[in-house]
């Protein structure tokens, strides 16, 4: 924490002054220090220890190693905390399947699964995915054998430019994970976070319907 040195100084600088410098909420680190530590030299040492124990762990702001479990493998990348999961995948792991469309959570091109839940990877920090299982479009095929959802997309020619396709396929996967036999209305709802600029929706819906019968 940035205030580490500050709170040390204020603790040493005499209690009266420190008390009067409480933050507006009365709950600043200094206020907390005064609250838990009785004034006096001996207590001060104990307070410092308590503070060290209570101070939360931090990452960054500098680049540091972060290990993510992606498509079943642990991968360590050296990144700043501000790097989104999408950028970590694309720029640091060379997994360029997930696409950056809007970078604001609105288009679904960046969709991946995190612990089974469909998420917009552009709106999640990579560090928020630590300890979780990330599944990207690259994790669906087994070698040369496409996943049934991917095959259904090929069969129905459910793409034009293909930019939305990885996200669509991941949204379809998440939908079918939870519902093996979706109605058209449920398919539309399941894919409602994914936008296709080329307007291939009807073919995509047909592909999902076909895929539902395969998985």
């Amino acid at each position, binding site marked *: 924490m*940035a205030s580490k040195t500050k709170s040390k100084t204020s603790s040493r600088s005499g209690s009266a002054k420190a008390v009067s410098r409480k933050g507006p909420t009365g709950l600043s680190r200094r206020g907390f220090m005064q609250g838990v530590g009785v004034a006096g030299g001996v207590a001060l040492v104990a307070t410092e220890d308590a503070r060290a124990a209570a101070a939360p762990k931090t990452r960054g702001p500098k680049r540091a190693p972060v290990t993510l479990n992606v498509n079943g493998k642990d991968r360590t990348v050296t990144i700043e905390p501000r790097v989104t999961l999408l950028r970590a995948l694309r720029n640091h792991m060379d997994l360029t399947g997930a696409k950056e469309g809007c970078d604001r959570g609105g288009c679904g091109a960046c969709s991946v699964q995190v612990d089974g839940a469909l998420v917009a990877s552009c709106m999640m920090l990579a560090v928020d995915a630590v300890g979780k299982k990330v599944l990207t479009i690259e994790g669906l095929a087994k070698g040369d054998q496409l996943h049934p959802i991917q095959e259904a997309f090929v069969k129905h020619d459910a793409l034009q430019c293909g930019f939305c396709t990885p996200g669509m396929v991941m949204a379809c996967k998440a939908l079918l994970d939870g519902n093996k036999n979706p109605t058209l209305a449920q398919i539309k709802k399941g894919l409602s976070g994914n936008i296709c600029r080329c307007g291939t929706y009807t073919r995509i819906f047909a592909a999902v319907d076909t895929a539902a019968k395969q998985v």
Partner: protein
Amino acid sequence: MRNFSYVMPQTIEAASIAAAQKNSVLKAGGIDLLDLMKGDLVRPDHLVNLLSVGSPALREVAVKDDGLHIGALVTLAQLAASSTVPSVLAHAASVAATPQIRNVATVGGNIAQRPRCWYFRSATFNCARKGGNTCFAQEGDNRYHALFDNGDCAVVQASSTASPLVALGATVVTNRRRIAAGEFFVPTSVDITKEHVLGEGEIISEIFIPASARALKAAYREAGERESNDWALVSATVALDFDGALVKTARVVLGAVAAVPYRVISVEEALRGKPITAANAARAAEGAFAKAKPFALNTYKVSLGKTILKRAILAAAGQPELSTAGG
């Protein structure tokens, strides 16, 4: 997005202390915050991750004798899928945003999200809500803006869960106090620089819905430009308590028409002691917008709002919403 240190507190107390530090911001799902940070509107040195707090209570919906305790980190997807959450709240959550967003967005962050006004969201416009002295929406593109209490700043409350929570008489529980949902949101007439009353380092731990809410018949209706993705153009939540066929008490809360979930007390009073009929519902809906002050580009919200409110009243009473007789 500027860089920051990522702080991982283990307890709410530690999160509160960390979040109260200078240039520190609390993050839950991060959906709204990342948007604000990418837009350079929020520039924290320290991002305090509430998700690091392991407490299961923060992530659960617990049914107890006194009512429902919804942990602040419960996601919109959890609310939507829950069979214990009042259906009016589950419904509102289920139509908010997209599947991707609902899986991450938390209910605490949802009610504390900042407005969507494009002037507010653009760092280029130093608007009144950001401390400047102009509300650019007054004379600008105000098609999505407020109908009530909109003279100084025209933002609308963006949260889909806010109106149902107010209608259900929910309480926002923080690490410091209990706040009635109706008192949680700040009207523009009180302060145009903030939307809620939370102080520095104050953290929502749960949303409480009293057991008495179980007796309410309630419905949420909204209209949007598309069925998914966008915030509602206007929404209405109605919660009725019946004595036989007559309304004993009513809560009528409009969404996306003011900076706060907008309770229409005059309509609540007008419905009291009466049966719900298509005519009563239409009259109430008409009255609710009598004092609306639309801008140049959002007059459509008045007629849209009337229809949505009428439907919500009828739906709450379990009556057919669409009549063929031109009503």
